[in-house]
């Protein structure tokens, strides 16, 4: 279990209890966090689940793999903490994770 905080583009925070093994995207959709669309349902094929991982957490969430990097090319306003949330799996280590939702999805 991990507590994840999603910060929507307007600043509203959504706190969610996420189960290990689920993805950061799935928990956003389940809890109707605005601004995460996830059109492809988590197949790393749409880039509409783009989030910015808080600086303090990028080491824990790790780096995007090649396929995710390729897909990130289609996202809008990429920043150093940019990830596709369907590719981040929840573990106990991520308890307290903070991600921000971008202004718009691709």
């Amino acid at each position: 279990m991990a507590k994840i905080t999603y910060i929507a583009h307007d600043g509203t925070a959504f706190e969610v209890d996420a189960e290990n093994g689920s993805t950061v995207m799935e928990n956003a959709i389940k809890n109707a966090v605005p601004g995460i669309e996830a059109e492809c349902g988590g197949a790393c094929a749409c880039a509409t689940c783009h989030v910015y991982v808080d600086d303090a957490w990028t080491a824990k969430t790790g780096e995007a793999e090649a396929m995710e990097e390729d897909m990130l090319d289609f996202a809008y306003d990429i920043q150093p903490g940019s990830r596709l949330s369907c590719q981040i799996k929840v573990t106990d280590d991520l308890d307290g994770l903070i991600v921000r939702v971008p202004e718009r999805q691709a």
Partner: protein
Amino acid sequence: MSENADIVETDVVIIGAGPVGLFAVFELGLLDLKCHLIDILDRPGGQCAELYPEKPIYDIPAWPEISGQGLTDRLMEQIKPFEPEFHFNRMVTGVEKQEDGSFVVTTDENEKIKGKVIVIAAGGGSFQPKRPPVPGIEEFEDHSVYYSVRRMEEFRDHDILIVGGGDSALDWTLNLQPIAKSLTLLHRRDAFRGAPDSVNKMKKLVDEGKIDLILGQVTGLNGADGVVESASVKTKEGDLIDVNCTRVLPFFGLTMKLGPIADWGLNLNENLLPVDTEKFATSEPGIFAIGDINTYPGKLKLILSGFHEAALMAQAAKKHISPDERIVFQYTTSSTSLQKKLGV
């Protein structure tokens, strides 16, 4: 493929060469119906080939695991005996009913194909270039911003900005460089998804000073009356710069849009075609809809459901074309006549 305006005639015109359209060729073929398929993509497979060619599918009966491309390849092999004819890189723009009850399908290249029956297997709609989320980009579309190159002359002697890091971006960089006044390739990182050979050729042009390569992202377009003068770019280092350009070609992948199907006078329900579950017929007799594009109570957007729909639709299509012919139910395992059609 037809090169002139002559009308091609066939039994069935299938709109969409995704997995469901492909399998329909098999079921219609067993009933002696010849098919032409039209797809805006340059190859068969629909979503399986375009969106997830390498990813495994786990719920195709009798295939514990198969990739999107693998499934497409096997379907192509399975339907080969029926010699379907493919028209790729074509968007179906119109479907018109004829006096004799048949239909003429028109493509964006103005080809016409006449079919006794139309099968719409258009999935989530036609694949079209994604509009990059750059504010105000709509204003410049078709004047300065293009998502594909239809006529190279439109680009001659222009300051061209190409955005992207895949094959389309690289190919057009190489093709347009000789006729451009200047060409800038903009990509957000130093890794390119395109073919290694194209990447090398592109890098050589950069080294020779023939094109500019900038690592960064477009944040806005500047200009007036639909004409772009420059693009605002945030570089990888975080600097904000202006890149002079009068033609912009963004390559941000493809997305599915319903497209012209909405204009064919068929009943639609939330961009899907309602059908019955016996014949998979639309509101227009002789036009059927199968796969992701249709809807009915209990519909699941699964490949296996689309295959089932294709089998039942084929029976109904045969009856529509030859109402007086008796259709004998047969198994491919034991029917010598079916086996003859399959060439086994």
